[in-house]
């Protein structure tokens, strides 16, 4: 009995020691990972309003004209309702917008990519975009047709960021070790990131068309993996108070969440006043958003924005 209990105790001690060893080893590995991460930015902020106001009138004019955004919307024929809504609403505020579709559709103009696979679509869309527009635009915004974007807020956010730096911005998520931008919230690439991506695309070891060994990885994760190889890391965009500006949910869903998590401060718990995207919107909701964001005004409230971004001339926007 005694020898049995002693061997039992020895067993427990050994088991515990083994477990501790394994955990610590794993932790150090993770620790190294996070330490490496801390070298890069995790989150990135909008410019401070004071900084912008300190610029001269001339500088502000220059800034507001110089920043040009090219929008890529990935669509499929099944998204026709959303496609129409995006076409009629917020996409008009992009300096240029192009709809990249899986196949040709009679009703709307688009760039046909001849594939149904979202990752292949994304690769092709970015490749074509880089080849055609690398000298004309410095910022590239990719969205799905269920997303609503306020391009003026995007421009403000990007205002003082240097596009020759590798930026990859949006609503970030973590999947194991991988930090990636969630496609639902919209993906922003600077020209430098796009340049690096179009190069690594050709490398079938680092950035294959058929990513993920056992099952397919989502295209936004694949993008993150490829970009990581080129030294480009995902950054979460926030306003000056730390609130996300790219949202993967609709206003209604976010308010509902805020009502249960922050009932005393629904506004603080919900959304940024400078939000750039909302997602999961039905086509009708896009029209309501346009009305609420651009037309409905409470009389007697005036806003002194330091900058004005106008939609491109001839874009059928009054």
């Amino acid at each position: 009995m005694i020898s049995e209990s002693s061997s039992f105790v020895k067993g427990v001690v050994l088991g515990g020691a083994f477990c501790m060893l394994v955990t610590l080893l794993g932790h150090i590995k993770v620790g190294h990972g996070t330490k490496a991460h801390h070298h890069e930015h995790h989150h990135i902020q909008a410019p401070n309003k004071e900084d912008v106001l300190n610029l001269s009138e001339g500088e502000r004019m220059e800034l507001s004209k110089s920043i040009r955004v090219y929008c890529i919307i990935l669509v499929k024929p099944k998204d026709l309702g959303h496609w129409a809504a995006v076409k009629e609403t917020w996409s008009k505020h992009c300096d240029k917008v192009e709809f990249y579709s899986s196949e040709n559709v009679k009703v709307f103009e688009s760039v046909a990519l001849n594939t149904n696979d979202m990752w292949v679509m994304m690769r092709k869309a970015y490749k074509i975009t880089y080849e055609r527009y690398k000298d004309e635009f410095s910022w590239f915004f990719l969205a799905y047709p269920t997303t609503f974007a306020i391009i003026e807020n995007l421009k403000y956010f990007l205002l003082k960021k240097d596009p020759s730096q590798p930026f990859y911005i949006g609503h970030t998520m973590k999947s194991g070790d991988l930090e990636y931008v969630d496609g639902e919230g919209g993906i922003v690439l600077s020209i430098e990131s796009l340049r690096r991506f179009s190069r690594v695309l050709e490398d079938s070891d680092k950035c294959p068309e058929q990513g993920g060994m056992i099952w397919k990885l989502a295209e936004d994760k694949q993008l993150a993996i490829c970009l990581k190889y080129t030294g480009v890391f995902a950054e979460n965009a926030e306003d000056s108070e730390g609130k996300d500006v790219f949202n993967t949910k609709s206003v209604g869903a976010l308010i509902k969440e805020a009502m249960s998590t922050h009932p005393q401060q629904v506004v603080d718990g919900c959304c940024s006043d400078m939000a750039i995207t909302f997602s999961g919107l039905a086509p009708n909701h896009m029209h309501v958003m346009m009305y609420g964001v651009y037309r409905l005004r409470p009389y007697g409230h005036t806003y002194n924005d330091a900058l004005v971004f106008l939609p491109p001339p001839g874009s059928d926007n009054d």
Partner: protein
Amino acid sequence: MASSKSLMNLLTFTFGSAIGFFVCYLLFSIILEEQVKIQPHILHNDPHGQHSADTDNNQLQGQMNFNADSGQHKDENKNIAEGLYQKVKILCWVMTGPQNLEKKAKHVKATWAQRCNKILFMSSEENKDFPTVGLETKEGRDQLYWKTIKAFQYVYDHYFDDADWFMKADDDTYVILDNLRWLLSKYSPEQPIYFGRRFKPYVKQGYMSGGAGYVLSKEALKRFVAAFKMNKCSHSSSIEDLALGKCMEIINVEAGDSRDTSGRETFHPFVPEHHLIRGYLPKTFWYWNYNYYPAVEVSLGTYP
């Protein structure tokens, strides 16, 4: 014998190590989870931004506060709006009932109602906590007109001197008070007039849709309350807005034009989608025949 004993030892040893490993694993996973929970908080807490500590300076327990003034409104100038707030005093009363306080009235209270100069919630029964005024009626669609009469009577008895204009809204209506003040600033509260979404059938000068909300001038309220004392208007009807409209005509209160300078309606009986999207409401829908003024359709392509 010796071999079976050493076998027993081996088994207990293995069993013990399994237990040891498992317990240790549990402990570690709990500890690590705590760490993981802390991490996202740090990520969000930017050194530049400040996370407001959970302050409990709200007067109302369990109430939602939508108007917590966030620093993001620093470059908003509200001087004109604030001036109008002082100049055009509006008392709002919201038609509700005991079953809707949690579902609907609570949200009205947390949002637009705060912009009224005075806000009252009218229900069939009194609720001291919310608070609601008890009209001592029953609930139900057929009671709406009676509730309306009693509500306006209550307002007249208790708050007549506290406001210039008296707005009735449902608990599923959203009112933009700033824009209402802009409309009413052009009229005198001594004028016998009322505003809302004007419908044309049944009443010569038209009547105002109940769902879109309507607002009475001081003089209109005075005449309305007097009309019942003098039996000029009937007390019962199953159609609240129509009955009120008929009464207004009898007592010579004018049905006003609430449209904006481009001829577009400012009071809306349905949700924004129904009004914004062309073709959403079929052409055969009763609504199109009820509107007093011709519909001015703005093509959807022209957003600013």
